[in-house]
């Protein structure tokens, strides 16, 4: 534990200091909301530079601060993805903060702290450091969900999210404490060594189940999904984009790391439980989404289903499974943020522009946006020329090679169901006439839609670099798991 260790945490340190400065900026002077986004982007740029600087020395896993953190390629992959996602959400948020009814500085400060927490999660190799990162992310998310503080729905969303989130954190902590009791350590590698020698230990099994329940809450998997539709609908749309993308990706980063690094040799097989959760998430998420008329609610249920797909990669416990999780998170992030940007595009007041009807006739008034929306929805559904196909291909292949063919069958069937409700939006845009004519996209939203469109198509048509990058990123963890 030396000062040099702190270099590994450079991106997190930059974000902490930056978050504090953004928080203090309005009270010390400068209440100009418009400048906040620019400073926030500058902060993200510096954080990216710091992350790349750390990544440059990250060929071998190097532990920092005792054994709390590791700067391995897995962490670097997720950190860079987080920065990109938060940068896109910062741009998306600029418009709704501009009118000045809600302070922009605190908003971006909370985003910076949330990003800091996500980075801690990505590189944590110790259950406590992972938990602290998770809490930093969660606390920021609770406040962000209630950012429309004068709107009942937003406050309600924040309250529900906070109460249920705090409960799930408690469950998670209890699970960790039982694991500590059984294994004598909270460090993932020590846990994996201890787990291998203690088949059928009851305290350990209960601990892992509670830990899994807490994690399933964070990724919004059935049966721990009840908060998702209400919170996603009530929160401001950019915050919903943040919750359904950044927060979920971060939760999957720790889900994968804990299970692949710490619990890969757990006996008896916990996979059947995860398989049930995954199957339920896919079925409930997709079937519930079919009947929704509110786009935000529909996408909330669809995000539950996506958590189910990604769980296939976690339970496969193989190289291709972990690779699938990384690829899926990447493609999901772009398609999902693109979709939310389109919902933002139709937003006129706080919650307007979020019914399926609001998409009516978009093809006539804004053909490019309608096309982009189709691409995003195809990607979410997993149809070939788009990136979503690659992600689903890896996950389903992982499930089959791990002996879960029945799960892959459910996944494919449910993907077909998902195309049904995604195409309701396509039908609304292309085959109906409607009042969607007054779309006035801001520069930022237009930019995000274009970026996501290009990314989704490029990653779908030329996926080799992404696949190789994912393979490199998972190498240290897979080596550990196969040892």
């Amino acid at each position, binding site marked *: 534990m030396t*000062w040099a260790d702190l270099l590994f945490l450079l991106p997190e340190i930059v974000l902490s200091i930056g978050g*504090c400065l953004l*928080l*203090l900026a309005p*009270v010390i002077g400068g209440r100009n909301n418009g400048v906040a986004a620019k400073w926030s982007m500058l902060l993200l740029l510096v954080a990216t530079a710091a992350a790349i600087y750390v990544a440059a020395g990250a060929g071998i896993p190097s532990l920092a601060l005792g054994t709390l953190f590791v700067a391995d390629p897995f962490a670097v992959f997720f950190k860079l993805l987080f920065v990109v996602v938060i940068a896109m959400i910062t741009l998306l948020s600029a418009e709704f903060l501009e009118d000045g009814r809600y302070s922009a500085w605190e908003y971006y400060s909370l985003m910076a702290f949330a990003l800091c927490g996500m980075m801690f999660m990505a590189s944590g190799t110790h259950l406590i450091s992972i938990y602290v990162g998770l809490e930093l992310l969660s606390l920021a998310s609770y406040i962000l969900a209630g950012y429309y503080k004068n709107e009942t729905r937003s406050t309600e969303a924040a309250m529900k999210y906070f109460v249920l989130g705090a409960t799930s954190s408690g469950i998670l902590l209890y699970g960790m404490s039982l694991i500590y009791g059984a294994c004598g350590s909270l460090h993932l590698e020590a846990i994996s060594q201890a787990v291998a020698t203690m088949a059928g230990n009851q305290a350990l099994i209960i601990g892992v189940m509670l830990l899994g329940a807490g994690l399933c809450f964070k990724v919004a998997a059935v049966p721990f999904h009840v908060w998702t539709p209400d919170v996603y609908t009530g929160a401001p749309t950019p915050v919903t984009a943040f919750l359904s993308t950044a927060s979920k990706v971060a939760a999957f980063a720790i889900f994968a790391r804990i299970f692949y690094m710490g619990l890969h040799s757990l006996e008896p097989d916990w996979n059947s439980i995860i398989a049930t959760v995954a199957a339920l998430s896919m079925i409930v998420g997709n079937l519930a989404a079919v009947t929704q008329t509110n786009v935000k609610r529909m996408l909330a249920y669809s995000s539950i289903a996506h958590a189910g797909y990604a769980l296939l990669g976690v339970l496969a416990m193989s190289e291709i499974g972990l690779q699938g999780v990384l690829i899926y998170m990447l493609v999901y992030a772009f398609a999902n943020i693109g979709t939310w940007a389109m919902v933002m595009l139709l937003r006129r007041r706080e919650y307007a522009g979020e019914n399926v009807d609001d998409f009516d006739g978009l093809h006539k008034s804004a053909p490019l946006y309608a096309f982009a929306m189709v691409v995003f929805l195809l990607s979410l559904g997993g149809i070939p020329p788009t990136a979503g196909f690659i992600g689903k291909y890896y996950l389903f292949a992982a499930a089959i090679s791990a002996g879960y063919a029945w799960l892959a069958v459910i996944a494919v069937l449910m993907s077909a169901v998902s195309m049904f409700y995604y195409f309701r939006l396509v039908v609304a845009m292309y085959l109906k006439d409607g009042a969607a004519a007054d779309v006035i996209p801001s520069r930022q939203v237009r930019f995000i839609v274009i970026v996501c469109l290009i990314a989704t198509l490029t990653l779908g048509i030329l996926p080799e670099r992404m696949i190789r990058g994912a393979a490199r990123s998972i190498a240290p963890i897979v080596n550990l798991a196969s040892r």
Partner: protein
Amino acid sequence: MTESFVPVLILILFGIALGAGMLIVNWYVGTHRRNPSKLAPYEGGVPLLDTNRKRINVRFYQIAMLFIIFDIEAAFIYPWAVIYRDATMTSSGIALFALGEMFVFVTLLAVGYIYVWKKKAFDWN
């Protein structure tokens, strides 16, 4: 392993049985002569001034929350101080590191303090 918890289970059951048993016996054996002043929340006979389910000014919660944060700060410094004395005994430079860490912690709280102060959270009017 599970068997070793049987005494705990017996203790829990005994506790429940004792509490419930006393209430039930009291209910059936005791005499009940109720009158309004006996049923009042404070049996001393002082009449209630007002209902107790009223809205309370949000400032009370605010002050309580702010108090907890800075209270925890103080509580956190105690164990640190104990460890810090041990750390100064070694010569590995870890004492300086620990001192720096505590400065970081206090600085972060100071940022929050400045924020709530400037936001007039302590302003009682």
